[in-house]
C-alpha cells in the first residue's frame, strides 16, 4: 500500500487568495493512501523543502504530491528534495493549482473545488508511479565525420582540438571537397586554396585525426555513444604508406585521356593520378577503369618507375570496423544535372558551362592556367552572360528543378562578374536575375560594388533560350524593367546551377536512421533550436547536407556541430531520461507498428525464445526499446494494437486513473 504525502503550497497569496488551502488539506487527507496532508506558505523555500524531507522520513512516505505551481517551474526542485530524503525522485507528482487554477479563476469556492480535483488526480497518478532509475550508457570517446570537405575538416579539427579522437571518411582520393575546386571566395576574394589547404594539412598532421580517403561508410549499427561503423577502404592500388607523392608515375603513365573530374572534364589526366597538387593525402591512385595493367594485365610501367615500390596491383578493398560515440554527417552538395534544361543548350555547346566549371577556368591551377578561355576554341570570350536560378526556385510540379533557393548563387555570380571585369575590362558581362539575394555580412555591399564600380550589367529578367550558331551563343532574354526582349550574342554562358545534396546522402541517411526532407537534405532535430543535431540521438549535421550554405555559414555550423559532439564525448556516461517506452514481450505481436511511428528509431526487433504456459518453447519476434535512444513521446504506445508498449511516467493506467479522478 502506498503511503502518500500531500503538500499544498500557498505561494504567498498567489494560490491562497483564490484557493482555500485548508479545505484542500481536509479534502485530500481523506483520499485513500494519503497519510499526511499539510499546507505551507512557500513549499519551494528551503524550509518548505525541509518540511517535505522530514515528512518523507518520518511518515515513511512512498510517494508525494505537491499542489503548487506548474511542474515546468519546480518539478525538478521537488524531485531533488525527494531524492535527498531517500525517496525515488520519480515518486513525485505535481498538481498545478497556480497557473491552471488560482491564476485563471476568480470564484474561491469553485477554484477550491477544482484544486481538490487536481490534487486527487495527482494522488491517483502517484499511487501508480513506480520508482524509476535513469539508465546510464557508456560513451565511446571517438567521433566519426562523414565527408572531408570544408564542413567535415572544420568539424574534425574542432573536435580534435578539444582532445578527442576523430576519423574522417572521404569517398574521393583526397579531402578538400567542393571548396578545393573554387578559385576565390566571396566577399573578401581570398583564394580558396590559400585558406583551405592549410586546414587540410592541419587535419592530416593532427595526431587525433585519422583520415580514411577513398573510403565509404558501409554499415552503421548501435546508438548514441555506441555506434559501430564498417568502413570500406577502396583499393587505390597504391600503398599509402610507401607512396611519397612524387608524381613520377602520374607523368609516365601511358593512359592520358581520362577526363579529369577535378577540372570537371575540361581537361584530362592519366590513369594513375593525384587529384590535385595539394591533395591530402598526397598519394597516387590508380583508376581501375582505365589502367591497362588492371584491365588487360599489360603495362606495369608505373610499378617499374616507382622508386618507393608503392604500386600494388593486387590491392583489395579493405573493411575496417570502428566504434564511435558520435557521428557527424558532412556529405555536402553538388550541382544538379542540367539535362532537363535544354533551352540553355548546356548539352549542345561546350561554351555553356556551370559556375563550378567557371571557377576552374578562372583558377591558376585549372585547365587553362587561370586564363579565361572558352572551352570550345580556347578564345577569349568578349561577351559573357550569367544566368541565375537555373533549377532553383522551381515549382514542384514542373519537375525540372528544385523548389528551394540555392542561396549561394547570387553571391558567387557577383564574384565571377567582378573577377571577370577586373581581369578583362574589355569583356561585357551580363547577369540575368530574378532577385538578387545578399543577406550576409558585407554581401550586399559587395554586390553593389560589382554593379556600380565594375560596370556589370545586372538585368532583371530571365534567359528564355540559347542557340549555338557558328561559334556564338544567341541568347534571347527578357529585360523586365525595360519591357524589352534582348538578343545578345555571347561567347560564353555561365549557368548558376542549383545545388542538391550529394547522391550518397540518401543511402547514408538510411544507415544512420536519420531523417531527411523531400529534397534529401538531412532534417535537423529542431529547425530553430537544434539546427546541427539530427532527431536521431548521436547524429550531428555539418554543412550543406542540411541545406544550402556558403563557406562562412558552413564553417560556423561545423563548429557548432563539433561543440555538440564535444559536449557528448566529454561525458563518461550518458544519463538517459527514464520516462521511456518499454515493451511487454508477452503481449508483443512483433508487428513493427511501433517501429514505424518511432521518430528516433529506438525500437528494434529481436527473435526471442519464450517458454509458453504449456511448457513448450516458442521463438517469437518481439520489440525492444533502447532506453538510451527513446525520448518518451509515447507515439508507439497508442500505435500498438495490443498495448504491449507502455510509457514509464505516463503509463496507460496512470492516465486512466487521472481521467477517472477528474471525471469522478
Amino acid at each position, binding site marked *: 500500500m502506498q503511503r502518500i504525502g500531500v503538500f499544498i503550497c500557498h505561494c504567498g497569496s498567489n494560490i491562497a487568495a483564490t484557493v482555500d488551502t485548508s479545505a484542500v488539506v481536509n479534502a485530500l487527507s481523506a483520499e485513500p493512501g494519503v497519510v499526511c496532508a499539510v499546507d505551507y506558505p512557500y513549499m519551494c523555500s528551503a524550509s518548505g523543502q525541509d518540511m517535505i524531507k522530514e515528512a518523507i522520513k518520518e511518515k515513511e512516505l512512498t510517494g508525494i504530491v505537491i499542489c503548487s505551481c506548474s511542474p515546468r517551474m519546480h518539478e525538478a526542485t521537488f524531485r531533488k528534495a525527494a531524492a535527498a530524503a531517500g525517496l525515488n525522485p520519480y515518486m513525485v507528482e505535481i498538481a498545478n493549482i497556480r497557473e491552471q487554477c488560482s491564476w485563471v479563476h476568480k470564484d474561491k469556492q469553485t477554484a477550491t473545488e477544482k484544486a481538490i480535483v487536481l490534487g486527487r488526480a495527482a494522488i491517483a497518478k502517484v499511487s501508480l508511479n513506480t520508482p524509476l532509475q535513469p539508465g546510464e550508457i557508456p560513451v565511446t570517446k571517438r567521433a566519426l565525420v562523414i565527408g572531408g570537405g570544408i564542413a567535415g575538416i572544420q568539424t574534425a579539427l574542432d573536435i580534435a582540438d578539444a582532445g578527442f579522437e576523430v576519423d574522417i571518411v572521404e569517398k574521393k582520393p583526397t579531402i578538400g571537397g567542393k571548396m578545393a575546386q573554387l578559385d576565390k571566395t566571396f566577399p573578401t576574394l581570398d583564394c580558396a586554396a590559400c585558406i583551405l589547404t592549410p586546414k587540410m594539412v592541419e587535419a592530416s598532421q593532427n595526431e587525433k585525426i585519422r583520415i580514411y580517403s577513398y573510403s565509404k561508410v558501409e554499415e552503421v549499427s548501435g546508438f548514441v555513444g555506441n555506434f559501430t561503423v564498417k568502413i570500406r577502404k577502396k583499393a587505390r592500388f597504391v600503398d599509402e604508406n610507401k607512396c611519397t607523392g612524387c608524381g613520377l608515375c602520374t607523368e609516365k603513365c601511358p593512359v592520358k585521356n581520362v577526363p579529369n573530374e577535378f577540372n570537371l572534364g575540361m581537361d584530362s589526366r592519366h590513369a594513375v593520378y593525384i587529384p590535385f597538387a595539394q591533395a591530402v593525402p598526397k598519394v597516387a591512385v590508380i583508376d581501375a577503369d582505365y589502367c591497362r595493367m588492371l584491365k588487360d594485365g599489360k603495362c606495369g610501367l608505373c610499378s617499374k618507375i616507382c622508386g618507393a615500390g608503392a604500386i600494388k596491383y593486387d590491392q583489395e578493398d579493405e573493411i575496417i570496423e570502428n566504434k564511435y560515440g558520435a557521428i557527424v554527417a558532412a556529405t555536402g552538395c553538388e550541382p544538379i544535372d542540367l539535362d532537363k534544361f535544354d533551352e540553355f543548350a548546356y548539352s549542345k555547346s561546350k561554351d555553356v558551362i556551370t559556375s563550378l566549371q567557371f571557377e576552374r577556368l578562372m583558377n591558376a591551377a585549372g585547365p587553362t592556367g587561370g586564363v579565361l578561355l572558352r572551352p570550345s576554341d580556347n578564345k577569349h570570350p568578349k561577351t559573357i552572360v550569367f544566368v541565375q536560378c537555373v533549377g532553383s526556385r522551381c515549382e514542384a510540379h514542373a519537375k525540372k528543378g528544385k523548389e528551394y533557393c540555392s542561396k549561394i548563387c547570387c553571391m558567387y555570380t557577383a564574384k565571377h562578374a567582378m573577377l571577370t571585369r577586373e581581369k578583362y575590362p574589355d569583356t561585357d558581362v551580363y547577369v540575368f536575375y530574378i532577385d538578387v539575394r545578399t543577406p550576409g555580412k558585407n554581401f550586399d555591399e559587395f554586390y553593389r560594388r560589382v554593379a556600380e564600380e565594375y560596370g556589370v550589367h545586372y538585368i532583371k529578367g530571365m534567359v528564355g533560350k540559347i542557340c549555338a550558331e557558328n561559334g556564338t551563343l544567341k541568347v534571347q532574354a527578357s529585360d523586365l524593367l525595360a519591357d524589352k526582349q534582348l538578343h545578345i550574342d555571347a561567347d560564353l554562358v555561365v549557368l548558376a546551377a542549383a545545388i542538391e545534396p550529394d547522391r550518397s546522402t540518401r543511402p547514408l541517411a538510411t544507415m544512420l536512421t536519420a531523417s531527411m526532407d523531400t529534397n534529401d537534405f538531412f532534417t535537423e532535430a529542431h529547425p530553430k533550436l537544434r539546427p546541427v543535431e539530427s532527431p536521431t540521438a548521436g547524429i550531428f549535421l555539418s554543412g550543406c547536407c542540411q541545406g544550402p550554405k556558403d563557406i562562412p555559414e558552413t564553417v560556423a555550423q561545423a563548429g557548432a556541430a563539433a561543440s555538440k559532439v564535444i559536449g557528448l564525448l566529454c561525458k563518461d556516461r550518458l544519463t538517459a531520461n527514464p520516462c521511456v517506452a518499454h515493451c511487454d514481450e508477452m*503481449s508483443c*505481436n512483433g*508487428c*513493427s*507498428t511501433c517501429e*514505424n511511428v518511432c521518430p528516433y528509431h529506438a525500437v528494434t526487433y529481436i527473435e526471442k525464445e519464450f517458454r509458453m504456459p504449456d511448457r513448450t518453447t516458442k521463438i517469437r519476434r518481439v520489440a525492444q526499446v533502447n532506453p538510451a535512444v527513446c525520448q518518451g513521446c509515447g507515439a508507439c504506445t497508442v500505435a500498438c494494437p495490443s*498495448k504491449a508498449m507502455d510509457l514509464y511516467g505516463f503509463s496507460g493506467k496512470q492516465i486512466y486513473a487521472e481521467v477517472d479522478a477528474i471525471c469522478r
Partner: protein
Amino acid sequence: MQRINRSELIKAAAKLIESGEADRVLGWKKGEFDYDVTPYVFNSIDEIEKDFVWGDFCGANFSKYLIKETAKSDKKVAVFLKPCDTYSFNQLLIEHRFEREKVCVIGVSCSGMADIRKIKDTAGEGIAKIEEQDGYLNVFTLYDGIVKIDSKDALAERCLCCTKRCVVYDELLGDGENKADNDRFAKVEELEELTEEQRYAFWKSELSKCIRCNACRDVCPACTCEKCVFDDPRSVLENKAAANEFEEKLYHIIRAFHVAGRCTDCGECSRVCPQNIPLHLLNRKFIKDINAFYGQYQAGEKAGQRAPLVDYTTEDREP
C-alpha cells in the same frame, strides 16, 4: 456456382503434397450441414479427396490460421486463398506475423460466396441440404420442401461489391479477379446522411444486440494480437461481457480503431456475428475516411506498404 471446380483445387493440393513441397493443406472441410463448412488441416491426399469441399459456403478466410499453423512445423503448409483472403495474407506478412517461405499459396478464383442468412430469410429454418444447379440453389427444407433461390440473390454482401484480385499466390487457379460494380460505401453514405439522432438510434439498436461473444474479433484476420486488450487484466479495458451500452460501444469502437488502416474489408466480422450486427459498416467508415482524407488505400494490396495510421504528411487535414 463456383467457376473453378473442386477437382482442380484437389489436383493443385495433391501436386504439392506429392512433390513434398508441402506436407499439409489448410482447406475447407465438410461440416454437419452443407452450409456449415469448417476450416481444417488435411494431412493426406486421401483425407482431401474424402472431406475437402469447395463451393458457395467456403467463406472462411484462412490467413489468420497461418500464424499458428506455420509455427507448428518447419515444413511448408499449403493454403487455399480466395482473392479477398490474399489481402489479409499480405497484411499479416507486412506485420511479420508469419514467414512467407513457410506457406504455399494456392490462389483460387471465386464467384462470390452465399450468405446463409439470406437463404434462411427466403427458405426459412430446417434446411437439410443445399444443391447448386445452373445458377440456382435448390434448398431442401424439412418444412417447405424444395425452395429454389437464384444464386445471385444469395450472394453475401461483401461479394456484391468485391473488386479484389489474388494479390499474392504461388499458383493461381483461374484469373483470380472479381469486378463487381456495386458501391461498397453506399450504406455508409446512407448512414452519414442521417441526423445525429438517427445515427445514434441506429447504432444503439444494432450494438445493443451484441452479446460479446468475441466472434468478430476471433475471426478477424487483423485481430491477431498475442493478448487482446479486452482480455488483458493490465489494460484497464478488460471486460468479458459488456455490462451496458457504453461498453458495447467502447468494444466496437476500439476494435474498429485498432484495425483501422489494416482492415482489408474481408467482411468476416459481419459473416460470423451471431446477432447479425453489420460490423463491417464500422470498418468501412474508417476505410472510406482514409480514402477520402489520405488517398486511396487498400490494406494488404502490396507487401511492404505503410498503413495510413502509422504514416502522415505535413499537409494532412485537421480533425
